[in-house]
């Protein structure tokens, strides 16, 4: 019977899990080594997408998550009142376009497979695409409209989930770093190394719990490591460019068809694909890049040059727009490109909710529901088995030898 949970990490996933557990009556303590909502959750665009995933477990999770957001946004607004900043949730819609003749058919075929599993993916003519996005490069070769792609302000969403969790009794402590696990068993202070995990040691006091959940994004591997457990999640860096405020000319999330290709690739070399969207503040965001450079935050001009160049292929008018800012973040990616949600089969008492790569914001709510169902042994809205740490595609990454290969 789980009645006390420690959650390591106060990003969007930790926040969503904290709220879901607290609402279910569980006593929750969230431990965050830095500031809340300031890691990867603060470095993305707030994408809630169904367009970028092919049929499979992750798409199922995304479709389910997509249905949860409107209800949650309304609940939080009621709960937290008008004084709390707006989450800026908008079902803005996505438009994926092919920019080469060779890319047209694969894009349309991909959309067709998504339709078969219930995604609203509408192939539109180039003329209709230009009606949706008048400033789009008219030389595109194919387009698919996804009305269900949505947008939220991710930092405000995470802070709102935490605020709600607090109202339901959760404790959120920032500036506290977890240093290891406490295990049940007699003898040594940390208990029997193979015993059930019953809490954590920190840079402040120990915290006891029935379950410890690691939701630390790309740093989850490091946290797991302090507990003697291997979690093969790695950082995959992305850069975003931000323009100055300008008259509104981009109305949806617009991507070239390379976007979903890049997410599925494990190639370590730089990958870029174009993503362009406007924000409520009147700026335009340009993405996206994927590189494996560890946690190196330093600027690389060649990366942002490539992002800029690809954005101009979609929207030539942007050539004269000014970039005023660039920021980067580290997506947490698992070697088989699926998040891990559930109990660690090797370490009872330890749970995971991480590895969401670039989809963490959207998937956070569904992740929380799956996790709560598993923890409290209640019916799960979706089959959680594909996200288990014990899935076949992860097996070789969990063995000690794979440490060097990583």
């Amino acid at each position, binding site marked *: 019977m789980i009645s006390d949970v420690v959650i390591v990490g106060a990003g969007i996933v930790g926040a969503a899990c904290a709220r879901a557990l607290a609402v279910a009556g569980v006593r929750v303590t969230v431990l965050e080594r830095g500031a809340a909502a300031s890691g990867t959750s603060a470095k993305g665009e707030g994408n809630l997408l169904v367009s970028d995933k092919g049929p499979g477990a992750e798409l199922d999770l995304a479709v389910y998550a997509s249905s949860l957001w409107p209800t949650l946004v309304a609940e939080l607004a009621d709960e937290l009142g008008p004084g709390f900043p707006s989450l800026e949730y908008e079902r803005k819609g996505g438009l994926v376009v092919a920019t080469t003749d060779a890319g047209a058919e694969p894009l349309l075929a991909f959309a067709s497979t998504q339709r078969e599993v219930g995604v609203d993916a509408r192939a539109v003519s180039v003329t209709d695409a230009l009606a949706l996005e008048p400033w789009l490069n*008219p030389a595109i070769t194919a387009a698919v409209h996804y009305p269900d792609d949505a947008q939220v302000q991710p930092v405000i969403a995470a802070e709102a989930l935490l605020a709600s969790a607090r109202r339901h009794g959760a404790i959120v402590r920032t500036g506290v770093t977890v240093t290891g696990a406490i295990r049940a068993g007699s003898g040594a202070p940390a208990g029997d190394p193979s015993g059930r995990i019953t809490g954590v040691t920190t840079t402040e006091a120990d915290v006891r719990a029935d379950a410890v959940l690691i939701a630390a994004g790309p740093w989850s591997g490091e946290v797991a490591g302090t507990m003697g457990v291997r979690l093969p999640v790695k950082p995959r860096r992305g850069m975003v460019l931000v323009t100055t405020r300008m008259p509104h000319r981009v109305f949806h999330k617009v991507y070239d068809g390379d976007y979903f290709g890049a997410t599925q690739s494990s190639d370590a070399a730089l990958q870029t694909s174009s993503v362009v969207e406007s924000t409520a503040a009147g700026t335009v965001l340009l993405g996206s890049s994927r590189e494996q450079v560890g946690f190196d935050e330093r600027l690389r*001009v060649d990366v942002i040059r490539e992002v800029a160049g690809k954005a101009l292929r979609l929207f030539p008018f942007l050539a004269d727009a000014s970039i005023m800012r660039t920021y980067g973040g580290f997506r947490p990616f698992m070697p088989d490109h699926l998040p891990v949600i559930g109990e660690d089969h090797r370490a009872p008492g330890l749970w995971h909710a991480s590895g969401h790569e670039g989809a963490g914001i959207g998937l956070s709510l569904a992740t929380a529901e799956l996790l709560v169902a598993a923890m409290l042994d209640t019916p799960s809205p979706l089959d959680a088995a594909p996200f288990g740490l014990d899935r076949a595609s992860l097996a070789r990454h969990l063995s000690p030898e794979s440490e060097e290969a990583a």
Partner: protein
Amino acid sequence: MSPASAASAATPASAARTVYAATPASAARTVLVIGAGPAGLAAAKAARERGASVTLLDAADATGGQYWRHLPASRPSANERALHHGWSTYTALHDELDRDPGCEVVLGAQVWAIEQADAAGQPAPVAVHVLVGPPDGTARRGRTFRPDALVLATGAHDRTLPFPGWDLPGVFTAGAAQAFAKGERVALGERVVIAGAGPFLLPVAASVAATGAKVLGVYEASRVSALVKGWLPKPWQLVGAAKKGGELAGYVGTHLRHRIPYVTGRAVVAAHGTDRVEAVTVAEVDADWSPIAGTERRIEVDAVCVSHGFTPRLELPIAAGCELTPDRFVRVDDGQGTSVPGVYAAGEITGIGGVDAALAEGEIAGHVAAGGSPRDADLAAAVGARRTFTGFAARIEAAHGIRQGWTSWLEDDTVVCRCEEVPYGRLRETREATCASGLRSMKLTTRAGLGICQGRICGRTVEQLIGATGEAGEASAPATSVTTDRRPIASPLRIGELAGRDPNTITHRASEKGHP
């Protein structure tokens, strides 16, 4: 002098400084200097004297920086020197470098990014990316420099604390008044109040008076006792700073001639007007800068020029990987070397010390960047001057540094972030509603600091108001910290300029919405 002996020599008199790895002397070193104000000009000259090949960059279309901001060549005058201090020093520096084939002066040169060595995959300490052309142009020429050594002399800008009505037209920084008086002969008003803190207010008042405007008063927030304490703890050092004393004596003289009141322990606590400033409220403030109730006076004005000190321009040093001191200046050793081998810093970015410190530091930085040693005999005068005038900087801060009581003159609707129009009340409410402790979360939630100026004006104020000091370890690892001074894009640039003017374009079909 060999690097080994340079590293082992003890540093006399002043507190021991860390000595970073000395750069090896070599023939024809390339030295890039960013900033052509006093520090940068001195650095370029000193580097040339050691035989380096020098490139001197400035974003403006003239050298001189802010201190020697002057009229353009198209507006010649017989006696421009009357507006300046040390004009001959400037013209000598400028003319020498301008004539020197070994020094390339590139004006209209906007540095927009600096990449650190291994991040860029290059052997040089940094890659410096520049756009040359009209300010904020759309098709400027891109140049990338990979010098053997880099000298950063990017200077500082006014730190102006918010107060009710400061966003009204007619409220300016003191630096704006100075720039337009000296650079354009424009008076920003006819009835002008100058306020804030620091010795800079005095030359500003003189410049404004020299445009024919009436300066109604100079209001310095620091109290007399603090001034005395700050300026005179070591009178023998003040003797060494006679030139500075001389400069100030001139300003005080101007004041007497123009009969401008100089009043301490006073602050402008509000500006009033509908669409422009029409009046200000000046109040007495206590030693903590809290306004004292009942002391408010209303003064009718048409311009207010306010500066509470200076913020160093740190985005380029931070981009280059330079460590900062706890009080957020670039950390340098006795050769003006930063924590990054091959990168040097001089002038206001190492501490607000004024023109004399900048000239001394610039000379040392240029000399060492070009392969010399701070212990070389020809640097002795500069080393001595640096000691005198950087000591001065510490005393200016002690006398005029911002005191925390100023926040009590804020109202809930006082704009704090000018670009995004974020009022003080919203910062407080958001902080309470989210229990936010982090600067990044607060920025993204309120948008404070996310506008076009990227926190240059409001950043340090927002940090102070929300009580955030960034994340752990910030002071020593600026490249990975949340500090508001970190801006990887150091200046806006066009997407077309970033992409390179022939990006991978798709073949266009004719269309009424088609664009080139």
